[in-house]
């Protein structure tokens, strides 16, 4: 594995290796001194073309705890037409000695271009591209589910048989796409629930079931985990696409309110990639309930990103050494 571009690229073995490594990393994070040495002397560039403080900080924390130096480059808006091109930005940063590029970009496929266009010769980690993929989010979600499912004995396990319901704006969601791919690879049984306007044409071939009815899905699928996707309020205006009539209608039909929370199996967890719209896709009651793993997901995110950086940078290094 040279890059991490899409959750769909991961084999079951690779995904489990990342999750197992993340478990090791997580255990080190309860120590008093959290910093580990493996990426000492290496430089990780966070190349963020979209505002995302939490994801950037998570990657930054992960890199620093592995002793890498971190350069943060933020260029709000796209590189398109105004100012420097993505190619020039990437080549500039690579020339400054980047050992890995973590990229968040509003254009689907931008990380893929960075990895394959021949512009730079550096491992690329996708930190979210447009409506395409957000593989470390899927990994941290899988990590969270795996811990809840297997407790202390997670090493080597997958998510075979886990029942997961993902609810919301699937059309625009890289989180949904990444999760569908990774959860299928790990053997989970996934249902996507959304108003028909927010399911992409073409999703019918995805390795999951599709539903328009949240109540029926909760009743019939009895999920082990329910993941609420962020819905942008502007999607209801006609300028934003007019995908649904009003926030209240969305909330009534697809929000995780108290009644739906009570309808979940007792052991079911409530997940959200954040940032949450309380009162829209998730009620405060659900967000703050004991079932909610929202905060846990954030801390797991650091461990998973440590694992990815470690495997892409130090992992390659040690296997090259072994080969010699």
């Amino acid at each position, binding site marked *: 594995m040279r890059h991490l571009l899409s959750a769909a690229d991961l084999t079951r073995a690779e995904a489990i290796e990342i999750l197992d490594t993340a478990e090791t990393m997580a255990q080190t994070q309860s120590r008093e001194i959290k910093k580990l040495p493996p990426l000492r002397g290496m430089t990780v560039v966070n190349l963020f073309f979209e505002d995302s403080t939490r994801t950037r900080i998570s990657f930054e924390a992960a890199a620093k705890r592995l002793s890498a130096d971190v350069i943060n480059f933020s260029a709000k808006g796209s590189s398109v037409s105004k100012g420097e091109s993505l190619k020039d930005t990437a080549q500039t940063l690579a020339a400054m000695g980047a050992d890995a590029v973590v990229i968040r970009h509003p254009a689907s496929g931008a990380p893929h271009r960075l990895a394959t266009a021949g512009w730079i010769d550096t491992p690329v980690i996708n930190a979210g591209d447009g409506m395409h993929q957000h593989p470390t989010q899927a990994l941290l979600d899988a990590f969270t589910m795996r811990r809840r499912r297997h407790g202390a004995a997670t090493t080597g396990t997958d998510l075979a048989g886990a029942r997961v319901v993902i609810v919301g704006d699937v059309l625009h969601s890289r989180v949904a796409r990444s999760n569908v791919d990774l959860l299928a690879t790990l053997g989970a049984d996934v249902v996507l629930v959304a108003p028909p306007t927010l399911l992409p*044409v073409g999703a019918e071939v995805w390795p999951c079931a599709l539903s328009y009815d949240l109540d029926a899905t909760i009743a019939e699928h009895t999920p082990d985990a329910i993941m609420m996707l962020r819905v942008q309020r502007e999607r209801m205006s006609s300028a934003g696409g007019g995908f649904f009539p009003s926030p209240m209608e969305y909330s009534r039909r697809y929000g995780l309110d108290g009644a739906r929370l009570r309808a979940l199996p007792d052991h079911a967890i409530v997940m959200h990639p954040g940032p949450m719209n309380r009162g829209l896709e998730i009620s405060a009651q659900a967000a703050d309930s004991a079932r909610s793993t929202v905060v846990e997901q954030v801390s797991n995110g650091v461990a998973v990103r440590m694992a990815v950086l470690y495997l892409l940078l130090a992992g390659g290094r040690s296997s090259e050494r072994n080969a010699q």
Partner: protein
Amino acid sequence: MSTSYLIRGAALLGGERSDLLLADGVIAAAGPDAAAQATADAITLDGEGLVALPGLVDLHTHLREPGREDAETVYSGTRAAALGGFTCVHAMANTDPVADTAGVVEQVWRLGNEAGWAEVRPVGAVTVGLDGEHLAELGAMADSAARVRVFSDDGKCVWDPVLMRRALEYVKAFDGVIAQHAQEPRLTEGALMHEGVVSAELGLTGWPAVAEEAVIARDVLLAEHVGSRIHICHLSTAGSVDIVRWAKARGIDVTAEVTPHHLILTDESVRGYDPQFKVNPPLRTAADVAAVRAGLADGTIDIVATDHAPHAAQDKDCEFAAAAFGMTGLETALSVVAETMVNDDANDFGWADVARVMSTAPARIGRVAGQGGALRVGEPANLTLVDPDARWTVDPARLRTASDNTPFAGRELPTRVVATFWRGAATVLDGEPQPDGAR
């Protein structure tokens, strides 16, 4: 006195072999007469194994001049055309300034004459500045020295139904035709590729087939209502083929074109996010490719037109979303048609059909006198000789278009253009362009 050429034994339209004598700009003699009438200084070309076709006519290119001479000029574009076997190209109106006045179309026309590689027929804009609001002075362009007969806002759809009706009616006065870029704008806002399984996975905003089909359906009905002819640019979906087939059966005066790339490539090509595969209308599914091939074979689709769309390197060497739409096609068109139509046994399609869809029919639609004629004594000597058995690998650096944005880089294709003659002069010999000095 101009050079005369004696072509020995080429297969006319892939059929009967014959000699042809090109002299004084026309086909002066054919058969045994050709050698008999050839003067001593006539250059003899061995046509053994070659197919002679009427010079190809492209109803749809973007030559980029005036405005984007960094991507292509009339000179470089028509030279590429000659190498592709073309003796006439139509130059779309979306230049800067837009070709929406007699002055701009005459400029483009004159640049074509000066370049001397092929006949350039400017396409006039339907609306001022391609803004879709006010009719351009179509009559002035028709009456100009450029004698414009094809009008198009290509790149943009003439979306307003009243404006489209007026345009269809108005051009009847001078036997013009509206060439519609069928794209419902609201259904394609931000669209980057065909909407379907691949776009869903890639997270690229989809361009649904219905956005093309709905406009074609509306426009064939409008054309029927006002008794006009209409031409559909770069038709790309199975549904569009069905609608045009239905319209023709109903007696509507509609013609349609397909591009070479829509005959061979599918949306699967976009999976690597390579902007070389970003084009409008987008690459569709394998079922659509099969449908447009069948439509071309059965005559529902009248012509192949390249939609040759050169772009400067920086407009393709970027993220998919940021890249320009379009791909070059003049130098690969004939090879792609050979591969997908002639060499594919699923179609009953021979070289005579190639001549029809790439020369005779586009000349007729564009009302271009002197192009697309039969290979007959007395006709203007516009023809091309192709080697149907040659195979070549596309190398962007070796194509003569000024831009490198071919989707076929590294791909092996059949059939090479060996020679092209325009008005009796060789623009290409041995597969090489012939600069003015040699002619």
